[in-house]
């Protein structure tokens, strides 16, 4: 581990805290379409109408059309459930049929949200069960070596499973099902099993369930628990988080900044969504993965290294605000320095070790080279080998394996096999690295780490002064600028009315607070 000036680290953390706190004001004052849909999901509403529109969308659209979403779906639903005695799902079906008008149940004052407890309790119970299942499956596991994380992205859930089974047989610890291009811009979560995706597979509750089952089976055969990952970032962040919690995902890509920068999603919308989604994941004990690594695909990995560090500090504070335990914060970073650069390995090492030192409890998510991967698969193997060495030598936790065909196609089964074998080999060969070597306190690596930390500190103070929204507008992350009024999904943001309530989030927060105090 690095010896760093703890005052600088504290100063970073404090600045990030203020930055997050400032954004939290906006978060607390608003709700969004997907948050309301998430509440419905966690009250037991699932399925779709005759036109494949998810029932949760039907209900929220219905309120937007006939009522006032700023009051929240609970405001309408609580009394409807109480008066009709129907479940939220039954009501949703009735709304879809045009048989019920929910806005009839409007009321001038806050409604009694506990009327929904009967609907909510079994859902939270399911999440707790899933959480327990994971915990008990993992309880004997001593997390020593990095966990090998590979993606499947065939577009067809059945092929994804085929590929995942092979990966598990060859030693993968974590399987991520990449989403089809464009799903993050959909303002609904598609339904059913799907066989047609591009660069990934639709994240649907059925697909996730099927893959979960396949991994449980394959894991049983392999004698270990295999983790499943999907993506929440996008216009349905909290909904996918809820589905993940119900279906026992173990990790969730969850980062507003990714959506803002790379998907042009409105920042207000997604910061608000992110908060609830992280509360859900914290409650479900699901590790989140943040997306700082992506910055380095558009910005230079050496010059802009400190933006990754700064963003990690901010993401840590956002997660803390959602009462997430540090051991669930899979902050992202990456091995993306130009291989032409002198001492590239040493600079990568510095960056990786800096992250490990500053966030000792976080299971950092370490991304392989992508940007400088080319059609030269033989060079690609060498690049991935160096990355694997940095991973093992600096003691990273979540080890995303690089694919030799990164520049060509989403991974073939054999690409993954080659990657897994390489990772195994490097892991064995370098196991005792940290015992064998000491960092030269005046050497290149220590110097570089200090430099990056200092730059991160300075950036954080700048952002603290100008505010997060302005910082994004100035293109401080990934060299991409986005403004507050721009971007997809803004129309789905609503200021909360005085009667607004979110009993699901409240219940989760109560539990989380108790746990944290306990």
């Amino acid at each position, binding site marked *: 581990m690095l010896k760093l000036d703890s005052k600088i680290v504290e100063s970073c953390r404090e600045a990030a805290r203020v930055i997050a706190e400032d954004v939290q004001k906006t978060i607390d004052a608003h709700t969004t379409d997907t948050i309301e849909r998430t509440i419905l999901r966690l009250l037991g509403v699932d399925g779709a109408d005759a036109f494949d529109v998810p029932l949760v969308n039907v209900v929220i659209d219905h309120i937007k059309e006939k009522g006032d979403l700023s009051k929240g779906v609970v405001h309408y639903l609580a009394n409807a459930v109480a008066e009709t005695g129907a479940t939220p799902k039954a009501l949703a079906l009735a709304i879809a049929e045009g048989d019920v008008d929910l806005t009839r149940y409007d009321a001038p004052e806050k409604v009694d949200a506990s009327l929904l407890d009967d609907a909510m309790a079994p859902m939270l119970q399911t999440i707790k069960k899933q959480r327990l299942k994971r915990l008990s499956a993992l309880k004997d596991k001593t997390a020593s070596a990095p966990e090998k994380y590979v993606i499947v992205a065939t577009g067809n859930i059945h092929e994804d499973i085929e590929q995942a089974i092979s990966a598990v047989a*060859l030693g993968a610890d974590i399987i991520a099902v990449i989403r089809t291009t464009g799903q993050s811009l959909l303002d609904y979560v598609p339904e059913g099993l799907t066989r047609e995706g591009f660069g990934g597979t639709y994240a649907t509750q059925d697909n996730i369930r099927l893959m979960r089952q396949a991994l449980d089976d394959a894991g049983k055969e392999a004698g270990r628990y295999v983790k499943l990952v999907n993506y929440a970032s996008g216009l349905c962040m909290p909904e996918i988080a809820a589905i993940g919690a119900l279906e026992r995902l173990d990790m969730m890509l969850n980062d507003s900044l990714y959506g803002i920068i790379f998907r042009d999603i409105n920042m207000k919308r997604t910061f608000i969504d992110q908060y609830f989604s992280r509360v859900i994941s914290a409650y479900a004990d699901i590790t989140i993965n943040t997306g700082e690594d992506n910055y380095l695909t558009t910005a230079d990995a050496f010059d802009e290294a400190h933006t990754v560090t700064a963003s990690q500090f901010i993401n840590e504070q956002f997660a803390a605000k959602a009462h997430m335990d540090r051991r669930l914060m899979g902050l992202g970073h990456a091995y993306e320095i130009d291989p032409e650069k002198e001492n590239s390995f040493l600079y990568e090492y510095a960056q990786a070790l800096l992250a490990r030192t500053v966030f000792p409890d976080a299971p950092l998510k370490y991304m392989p080279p992508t940007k400088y991967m080319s059609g030269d698969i033989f060079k690609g193997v060498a690049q991935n080998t160096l990355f694997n060495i940095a991973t093992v030598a600096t003691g990273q936790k979540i080890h995303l394996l690089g694919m030799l065909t990164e520049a060509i196609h989403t991974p073939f089964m054999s690409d993954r096999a080659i990657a897994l074998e390489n990772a195994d080999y490097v892991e064995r060969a370098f196991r005792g690295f940290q015992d064998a070597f000491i960092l030269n306190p005046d050497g290149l690596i220590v110097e570089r780490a200090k430099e990056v930390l200092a730059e991160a500190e300075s950036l954080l103070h700048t952002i603290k002064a100008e505010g997060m929204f302005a910082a994004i507008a100035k293109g401080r992350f990934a060299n991409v600028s986005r403004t507050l009024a721009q971007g997809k999904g803004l129309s789905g943001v609503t200021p909360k009315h005085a009667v607004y309530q979110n009993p699901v989030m409240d219940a989760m927060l109560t539990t989380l607070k108790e746990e944290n105090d306990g």
Partner: protein
Amino acid sequence: MDRSPSVNIRPYGDTKNDGKIQISFTLPLKNDALGEEAAKALAAKMGVPDAHVTHRKSLDEQYTFYILYGTLTHVVDPSTLHVPLATEAAMTKEEVEAFIAGHFQEEIVFIGASTGTDAHTVGIDAIMNMKGYAGHYGLERYSGVRAINLGSQVDNERLLEEALKHEADVILISQTVTQKNIHIQNLTAFIELLEAEGRRDDFLVVVGGARINHALAKELGYDAGFGPKQYAADVASFCVVELHRRGRKTFT
């Protein structure tokens, strides 16, 4: 040693015309001697009758990965080949600028985007933005050029709208995600849109991306296609020459 290219070219390992070649693939067969024969049989059909399986690895019980080396019996005569390139001899930035100054009355308007659900902007930015890529400045920096970059995830409809609004001469489209040929669908849809709106002849329409080349672009109804290691100067060269040929905005 005679180094002049012969007519019938074969791959080369360490002896002229030895035909040496490396192949790898996965077969949905279990890892056994029969699978190895299947791999060799496929190689034989490919024209590698003597292939050696140097490696086979189980990917799971039903799949095996094979690496093969062998001798290719096929030959190719390069003189019979046609090279589909948008521009044979591209001009430099300065030459393009001089060409514009010398041939056109007005500045040339390029509008570009990464379309559909494609969120990859690095390619289109490489062509259009000031900074460029790998030491090649982008169109924004060219005198005589106006470059409007709409970014990524732009609908075909919106792209056409903006092109009309800005009276663009050239429409630049970038496509990076190609899995299951999604780019073909999306690119075809844009040409159909142009035709449906009767606007196909109002623009040069050019496409680029990691898996794009000129031949594919032409096939899809585009005026040109560009791929890896091609930069702003290549596109600009093609476009100014072609616009001039079409008599657009040229001096009378």
